[in-house]
């Protein structure tokens, strides 16, 4: 782009932002400015300037009642498969799960290396997840191998006598899928069912809930989550 003008430096940037807010920037420039806006506070203050000033024109967008089916489609898009405000939607829970993940992942790798192997061929782990939760003393480490097997090792916590722990796989925005009842006092080798395996990968959340003996009868988690974590690449 040739630019025969005395506009330069920040003024030029300010103009780019104005063009961006107006919506006239050509695609390539629009994309690159968007990326810069994320990292440059000065540009963001220009963005605020133009957005707030030009927003005075917003009154000219005539209010038009949207057809009723739109709302139900939005709800469907965002919330299908999820029971009313489930714990898997809780921001605080995932934040605490993520915070502990790195520390436990380190332990996980150590365990993977030091645990005596019964199998003749080594368990080639590709993904690891550290499962823990604030206010719970139960924690697990999960290792996933490309053979479609999940090895879940308890790190702490007691095996309850009158209840069972159940393991769930959760993809972003979808309902938890049960991976069965697991033990808190022994290593669990879980064969991942095909319908779970299809989406299983980096970013999949694994969660353990406390359920009645034999696991949740409804197919969805009923009890409190005692440990959760996201699968990350080793």
């Amino acid at each position, binding site marked *: *782009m*040739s*630019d*025969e*003008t005395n*506009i330069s430096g920040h003024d030029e940037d*300010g*103009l780019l932002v*104005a*063009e961006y*807010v*107006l*919506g*006239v920037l*050509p*695609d*390539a420039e*629009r994309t690159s400015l968007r990326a810069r806006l994320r990292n440059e506070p000065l540009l963001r203050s220009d963005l*605020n*300037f133009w*957005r*707030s*000033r*030009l*927003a*005075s*024109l*917003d009154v*000219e*967008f*005539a*209010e*038009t*009642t*949207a*057809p009723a089916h*739109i*709302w139900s*489609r*939005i709800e469907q*898009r*965002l*919330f299908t498969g999820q029971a009313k*405000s489930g714990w898997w*939607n*809780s*921001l605080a829970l995932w934040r605490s799960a993520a915070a502990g993940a790195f520390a436990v992942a380190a332990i996980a790798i150590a365990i993977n290396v030091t645990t005596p192997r019964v199998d003749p061929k080594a368990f080639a782990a590709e993904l690891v997840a550290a499962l823990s939760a604030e206010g719970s003393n139960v924690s697990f480490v999960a290792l996933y191998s490309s053979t479609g097997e999940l090895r879940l090792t308890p790190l702490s916590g007691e095996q309850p006598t009158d209840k069972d722990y159940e393991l769930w796989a959760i993809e972003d925005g979808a309902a938890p899928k049960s991976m069965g009842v697991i033990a808190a006092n022994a290593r669990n080798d879980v064969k991942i069912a095909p319908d779970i395996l299809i989406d299983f990968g980096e970013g999949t959340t694994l969660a353990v809930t406390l359920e009645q003996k034999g696991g949740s009868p409804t197919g969805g988690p009923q009890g409190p989550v005692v440990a959760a974590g996201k699968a990350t690449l080793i």
Partner: protein
Amino acid sequence: MGAETAEIADLIARCALRDRAAFRDLYRRTSAKLFGVTLRILRDRSEAEEALQEVYVKIWQRADRYVPGGYSPISWLVAVARNHSLDVLRARKPQSEDIDMALDVADAGPDPEKAAADRGERSRIDNCLGQLDGDKADAVRGAYLDGYSYEELSERHKVPLNTMRTWLRRSLIKLRECLTA
């Protein structure tokens, strides 16, 4: 901040905390406005409906990015709706990659009579737009309200593409001077 504005800000904050009732309330109170945005920019009812859905999905997913104080919460919502509509619009009709600019085009300068006539009760932006030539103010409004690209603006105003960009940029410089004055 007005009571209405504060309430909308509060609803957005509660959406960030995954409060679905707040989200429903936010939709109920703001969807007519945002539908107005997607309709005007996309000029196609079914595309506008589709876009409205996407816009609220984004609002739910990005509610935690709204920072109160920058600009009004309804402006933020309108910005989300405008941005999404513009993305749809641009994807519909790809435009040229690059527009050369020559900023040495003769500039007629503001029309003092028009500027004077336009002062008075109108808001600041209207006042400042009023100080631009009529067709230059129209170009700014057309871009903001109708989502016209430089191509469309140059067709409508019957000037070459690069002249159009030069025009609009000059107008924006004047607008910024007026708005910060």
